């Protein structure tokens, strides 16, 4: 039986093969977790967080969703107005916009029963700032005195704690800033400033696996790559008590797939609807659809570190280019109405606290003849050719870059402007931050907290942490400094806007449009709102 012996060897080889690949399998597929949470539990769209869930380390939406559900900060932002209101803090007071005294409400607890006190905040902030902890959002503590000691620009830190943070008593602590910063209290609702329990330090690995916070919800289970279940936290005493019996966050491989589940009724709430479905969403979901401006502004920046773009006359070229972009028709057709044409460098979510409807003025209106004239007065486009670089791996960047180039080419002649796709977001950002751009490039800003300061200081001051184009203007820096020192908020906003006017004159970055936040929800779901950060306010969602 030749065949039989041959077959035996095949089996033997197969066995070796299985043994070799066995390292890849084992104990993986737990088929638990009912897909559609019944009994008042809301199922919601999610993706795998990209970082650990330490408060100062989360800087993307998936991790942020969880943090906002399981933590209560000193302040929280109203979903409708975007205004900050006190949450864990009883009061935040100052006399000079530089020294702040923060008093906590008494009796607050983490979901494991541990009390929330001044140390919970002071220790968390010191942890977040210390450079050896490698937290992605460390820079948020940069205004606090002593940050340069715990987070020097190079080398090892010379201190473990910031000298500007002092515990006064169990429920009170003081913060001393390195400069006057009148909107500092408004920033304290951001996730980097959340408190952590003692367990965070005593058993860090366990906390990272199963984060414990002081917010509306607590985590009951978290299967990486699949989802997370949250139930209301019985210890929570704030204003945002859960109106449902819990939230099941479900990881989806793509937003298209999640959208199909939403339409089929297997998913209750989905934010960030896929761009390709925005035309259908209204009818597919029979009106259960939200589309509103968000705190995200999309811009294109000039590489002002390149001499060609930084001549005395180049400002006219930059202004002229802004006038060649047909914002209303691109947002309406190419972007399917999920963007709103920009009129300034901030966002409509700020409302009276800094948003302006006519800041850009004539440079925001489509006027090819005038734009072309300005460009010619400014000496024409350097080199005669224009590229707009963008990352091609996500979003609809290719669509609008091509459209923008189209409207520019219409005025300046075909072939003047071309898109320059870069493979991934990672390599695109790498090229931007290492100053390798030669033409225009895509930039965008999602606010950290709803203040006009956040839209201007990090992006356009000389040493701004996200000044990608390296624009520098002493007058602008001075005005922002003055606005930061102003304790009267209306006056502060006016000074910030005065600084913003310099952006109109110099046009280092062309504002394009504000991104809208979109969401859809199921038939038995009620009270879905999006907060200023475009994330659904899960705690207030009701389910029949």
């Amino acid at each position, binding site marked *: 039986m030749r*065949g039989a*012996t*041959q077959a035996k*060897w*095949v089996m*033997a*080889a*197969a066995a070796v*093969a299985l043994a*070799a690949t066995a*390292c*890849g*399998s084992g104990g*993986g597929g*737990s*088929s*638990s*977790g009912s*897909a559609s949470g019944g009994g008042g539990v809301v199922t919601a769209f999610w993706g*795998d*967080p*990209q*970082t650990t869930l330490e408060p100062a380390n989360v*800087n993307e939406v998936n991790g942020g969703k969880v943090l906002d559900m399981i933590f209560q900060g000193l302040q929280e932002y109203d979903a409708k107005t975007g205004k900050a209101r006190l949450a864990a803090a009883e009061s935040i007071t100052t006399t000079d916009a530089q020294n702040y005294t923060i008093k906590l409400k008494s009796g607050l607890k983490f979901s494991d029963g541990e009390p929330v006190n001044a140390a919970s905040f002071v220790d968390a902030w010191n942890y977040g700032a210390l450079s050896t902890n490698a*937290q*992605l959002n*460390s*820079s948020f503590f940069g205004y606090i005195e002593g940050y340069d000691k715990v987070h020097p*620009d*190079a080398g090892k830190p010379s201190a473990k704690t910031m000298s500007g943070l002092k515990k006064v008593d169990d429920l009170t602590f003081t913060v001393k800033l390195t400069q006057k910063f009148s909107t500092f209290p408004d920033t304290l609702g951001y996730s980097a400033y959340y408190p952590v329990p003692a367990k965070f330090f005593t058993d860090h690995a366990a906390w990272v696996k199963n984060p414990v916070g002081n917010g509306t919800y607590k985590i009951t289970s978290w*299967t*990486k*790559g*699949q*989802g997370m279940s949250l139930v209301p936290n019985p210890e929570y005493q704030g204003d945002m008590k859960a109106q449902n019996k819990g939230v099941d966050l479900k990881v*989806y*491989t*793509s937003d*298209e*797939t*999640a959208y*199909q*589940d939403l339409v*089929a009724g*297997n998913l209750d709430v989905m934010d960030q609807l896929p761009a390709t479905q925005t035309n259908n969403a209204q009818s597919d979901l029979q009106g259960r659809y939200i589309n509103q401006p968000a705190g995200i502004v999309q811009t294109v920046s000039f590489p002002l570190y390149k001499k060609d773009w930084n001549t005395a006359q180049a400002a006219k070229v930059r202004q002229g280019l802004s006038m060649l972009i047909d914002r209303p028709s691109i947002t309406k057709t190419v972007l399917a109405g999920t963007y709103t044409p920009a009129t300034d460098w901030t966002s409509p979510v700020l409302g009276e606290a800094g948003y302006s409807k006519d800041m850009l003025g004539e440079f925001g209106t489509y006027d090819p003849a005038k734009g072309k004239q300005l460009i010619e007065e400014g000496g024409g486009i350097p080199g005669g050719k224009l590229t707009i670089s963008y990352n091609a*791996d996500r979003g609809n960047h290719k669509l609008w870059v091509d459209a923008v180039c189209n409207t520019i080419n219409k005025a300046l002649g075909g072939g003047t402007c071309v898109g320059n796709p870069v*493979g*991934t*977001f*990672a*390599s695109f*950002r*790498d090229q931007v*931050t290492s100053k390798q751009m030669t033409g225009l490039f895509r*930039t*965008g800003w999602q606010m950290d907290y709803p203040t006009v300061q956040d839209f201007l200081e990090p992006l356009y001051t000389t040493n701004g*942490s*996200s*000044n*990608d184009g390296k624009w520098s203007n002493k007058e602008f820096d001075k005005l922002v400094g003055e606005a930061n020192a102003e304790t009267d908020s209306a006056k502060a906003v006016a000074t910030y806007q005065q600084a913003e006017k310099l952006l109109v004159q110099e046009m280092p970055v062309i504002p394009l449009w504000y991104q809208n936040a979109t969401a859809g929800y199921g038939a038995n779901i009620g009270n879905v709102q999006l907060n200023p950060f475009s994330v659904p306010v899960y705690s207030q969602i009701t389910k029949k």
Partner: protein
Amino acid sequence: MGRYVLRRLLQMIPVFIGTTLLIFLMVHALGDPIAARFGDKAPDPVVAAQIRAEFNLDKPLWLQYVLYFKGIFTGDFGTAFTGEPVIDLMARSWPVTLKLGLTAFVIEAVVGIALGLVSGLRRGRLTDTVAMAFTLIVISIPVFVLGFTLQYLLGVKWAVIRPTVSYGAPLNELILPGLVLASVSLAYVTRLTRTSVAENLRADYVRTAVAKGLPRRRVVTQHLLRNSLIPVVTFLGTDLGALMGGALVTETIFNIQGVGYNLMQGVRRQESATVVGFVTVLVIVYLVANLLVDLLYAVLDPRIRYA
């Protein structure tokens, strides 16, 4: 034959080292992954330097590769940026993809060979024409179009099934994704089998078998089909690897958190540990599948022997 198997297994080692090195270099060529972790913000130099040190990204490339390879031998496939060991990622995604891949493989092999045999035996008649037209249509439709269309019709419009697969990927929910994944290969298997069967139908040994007076059933299964399967087996063997690695599109459409999904996420975040780890296992799957195909030749055709 034992020596042959041993030799083939030894040959896998240089192939294995070469492919991992190539993939390592390719992921590296994409650029520095750290900048993306800060989103639209400029990276904090101190934090960036620490993360680089943590993932060995500050070392010269050859040293990174050596360190990575050293890790593999101690069962350490490195960690993803989330701090999760890559081995855990593999442990939860490989079983899922294996299930999907095998489902597709069974569909493709059984339906494909059956269809091919029938149309090969009835060449030129109506059954054959219909089968050929059907496979031509399947081949010309891209997988994602087929996937989205079936998902929309069956899952959303008629609501016969759930549009997405639930977590853990139960077998009954994998039938539609398996069918979509198998579709193109199924068409190829049908066509290969058909041609091979039609050709061998005129071979001397078949004529002899018929002349001997063997029952038709025995002629077809023992003589005709067995010899006609050799090219089909080659195709199926290499396709097994392709089904595992190429499930990306199908996995994304049907929300299956398998190898393709994790690989895609790894590429997007430029996590070399994740990408190299997953591809390494894929390479092993390809190599082993190829070896099995070569050995199966000998079982199917007694004239082929390995020394």
